[in-house]
């Protein structure tokens, strides 16, 4: 595992470089930050313009890979949320609400194209503010975000065909609160269906990753989106609660932790507000002995180390058929030695920085608990940078169902590995969780895939792959992983039927 040297720029050398005789130790290949202009300070985005917060308070946002401050961002208080909701209401009753659906679609198509054109800028911004590897923000987050806008744009004027016989009018003003793991992609998941169906939005991005939302707000202004259609209020959980609880909001969409989701549901009980929740998970990733093992290894790696494991559908509980356990573990440990942890801006980095100090502390605590509970920990030899928030890829074997690392969502690069003997036992263990967001099954038997998918209590079941997303495919959970779907036609439904 390498720690890239970050001092050399990514340009061909003008003098003869010294020949490195051994190996293929990639020299640092750092993505340029030139396309990104970060302002020293950001106001709220209300009614189509930057708006100073009534609180007059700003909080810093940092690069988690270096702990260096990137900018200061306004903290919205109750008055600011009031103004944002009022602006959204005005737009809903005005320009956006009255606009014919095919006209709405044009704005969404335009936003999608602009996101594609500026995808490098947004990808770098995501990586700077959130710590995720540029390879992922470049190849996954941004292309998918644009794809969601394209997909929803296509439905905007076809809602009566998508849902024959249903009331396809919008709900009104939508309050949306999104997490820090996929800031730009979560904006797309939330904003694209809301706007396509004719609603207006007040969005609260995560405290640690507000920059892409603020850059996106400026992009929508360039796209000519009528003022007030999309409003961004930045802040911490308090601001989020103010958005959710605001009486002017007709529908709430929240993605985040199960604890906060439960609180929101309690608060909204009896208010008549619509609610969709996309919460945590502790996804079972099930490997049968007839699985294509080397591809299953890639699936396991992708399942738990994608985005440092900061993924609600991360395959964090590996269930391996006993007969193939040793064979699989040999392959997995070897594969871990090829993972490249380090500078998120290096194009060859596989695992980047942990998003925040708070998250690093939580991961560290749970891993310590895992060790104390008696599970066997494995981490590959791995030099982590001195500054910033880092956690080495971690495997736990000898894990029991009763261990906390088998029950609780760690939301980090930590995999808990257990074994099973029969398909029925696999299902029983897989479903033995309060969550139910996703699951993975690896086997060469098509019939077993269908048998398992029928029995797994999970919103998404991936077969012989993992972490595959597409705007046309609905995503969402069972049980404490939430309700409502995002993506597909299903993802439009929560934003329809207001009158």
């Amino acid at each position, binding site marked *: 595992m390498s720690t890239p040297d970050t001092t050399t720029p990514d340009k061909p050398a003008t003098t003869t470089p010294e020949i490195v005789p051994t*190996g*293929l130790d990639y020299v640092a290949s750092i993505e340029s930050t030139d396309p990104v202009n970060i302002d020293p300070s950001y106001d709220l985005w209300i009614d189509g313009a930057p708006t100073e917060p009534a609180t007059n308070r700003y909080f810093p946002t940092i690069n988690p890979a270096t702990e260096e401050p990137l900018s200061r961002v306004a903290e919205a208080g109750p008055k600011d949320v009031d103004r944002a909701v009022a602006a959204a209401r005005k737009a809903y009753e005005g320009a956006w609400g009255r606009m014919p659906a095919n006209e709405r679609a044009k704005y969404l198509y335009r936003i999608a194209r602009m996101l594609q054109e500026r995808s490098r800028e947004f990808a770098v911004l995501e990586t700077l503010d959130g710590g995720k590897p540029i390879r992922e923000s470049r190849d996954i987050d941004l292309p998918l975000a644009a794809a969601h806008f394209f997909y929803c744009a296509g439905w905007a004027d076809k809602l009566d065909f998508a849902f024959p016989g249903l009331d396809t009018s919008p709900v009104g003003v939508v309050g949306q609160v999104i997490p820090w793991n996929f800031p730009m992609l979560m904006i797309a998941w939330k904003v694209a269906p809301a706007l396509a169906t004719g609603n207006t939005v007040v969005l609260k991005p995560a405290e640690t990753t507000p920059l892409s939302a603020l850059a996106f707000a400026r992009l929508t202004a360039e796209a000519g989106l009528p003022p007030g259609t999309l409003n961004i209020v930045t802040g911490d959980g308090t601001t989020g609660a103010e958005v959710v609880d605001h009486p002017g909001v007709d529908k709430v969409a929240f993605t985040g932790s199960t604890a906060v989701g439960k609180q929101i549901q309690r608060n909204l009980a009896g208010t008549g507000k619509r609610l969709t929740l996309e919460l945590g998970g502790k996804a079972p990733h099930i490997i049968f002995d007839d*699985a294509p093992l080397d591809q299953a290894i890639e699936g396991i790696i992708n399942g738990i180390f994608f985005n440092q494991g900061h993924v609600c559908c991360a395959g964090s509980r590996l269930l391996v058929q006993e007969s193939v356990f040793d064979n699989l573990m*040999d392959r997995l440990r070897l594969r871990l030695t090829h993972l490249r942890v380090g500078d998120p801006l290096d194009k060859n980095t596989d695992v980047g920085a942990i998003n925040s100090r708070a998250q690093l502390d939580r991961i560290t605590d749970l891993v310590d608990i895992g060790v104390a509970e008696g599970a066997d920990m494995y981490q590959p030899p791995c030099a982590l940078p001195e500054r910033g928030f880092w956690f080495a890829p971690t495997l736990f074997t000898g894990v029991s169902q009763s261990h906390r690392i088998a029950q609780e969502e760690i939301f980090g690069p930590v995999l808990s590995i257990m074994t099973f003997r029969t398909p029925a036992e696999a299902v029983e263990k897989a479903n033995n969780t309060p969550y139910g967001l996703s699951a993975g099954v690896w086997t060469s038997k098509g019939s077993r895939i269908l048998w398992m998918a029928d029995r797994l209590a999970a919103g998404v079941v991936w077969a012989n792959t993992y972490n595959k997303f597409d705007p046309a495919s609905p995503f969402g959970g069972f049980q404490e992983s939430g309700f409502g779907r995002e993506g597909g036609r299903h993802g439009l439904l929560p934003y329809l039927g207001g009158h």
Partner: protein
Amino acid sequence: MSSPATTTPASPILGPSVTPRTIDSFLRAVPSVDEVGVAERAGALATRSVKRESKLAALHLAIRMCDLTTLEGRDTPGKVIQLASKAIRPDPTDPDIPSVAALCVYPNMVPYAVEALAGAGAGTANGTATGSGVAVASVATYFPSGQAPLDIKTGEVAWAVAAGATEIDMVINRGAFLSGDHLRVHDEIVAVKEACGPAHLKVILETGELSTFDNVRRASMLAMAAGADFIKTSTGKVKPAATLPVTLVMLEAIRDFHAASGTAVGMKPAGGISTAKVAIRYLVLLAETLGSDWLTPDRFRFGASSLLNDLLMQIRWLRENRYQSPDYFTRD
């Protein structure tokens, strides 16, 4: 008409008694391959960014791994002699550029290649018989189809080795493999290996004809169990030839075989690799699957004819920060 050997000698991998049954159970233990997953992994590794010093090192290594190849009906001694000169000194203007690993020709051309590569030195670097350090490789076993009786195939191999070839590239019996006669495929490789004597044996699977990755992985294991020193994707005469995904499948088989037997087998993708950019992707695949122990011409070769000039051109670009006209590189 000859038939395969009626009794198969004991195998260090398959045991004292090699029967259709032992081979069958050996191949059943080979993990299946998911095509989508292989393509995805190969595609992800193809996005690795290899720059500056790393790129230069990779380009030099790729030259040292080249089996410079000419396999045409119209090959003449003159053409082979010219290529031999290129193989020894790929870029006459730059003494830092290393020689390629081997010159790969048809058996008829072996004597001319041996003479041209004899060079002035008396050393036998890389275990080659030539003074220049560039080995002579010969395709044999009725390349590319392999559709000939076994004794004629082994006769061709023995002839090429006697003429001075130190590396033999054989083709497997794809018809036998696809019909399920794995024992016959195995026994033919064993027989050819014996005919090779001291020469290194590269076994061509012709993956374009095997069609599925499951077949490729099993054929790889079979060839290694039968004694292959290298496994090789293609003859270059069938499309598709070498691809990144098929090479990944074979590298994973090599890794498994090494873990099981302790024997390190080499890999040679061949056919269709014509640019430095693609060659570097193969090296990335190699490094991240088998590790740096395999980053040597003893364990990895490129079978290519036009790749060499692009490698030279890219080295010149790295050194001088501008592209040279293709006319500055010899076409042989």
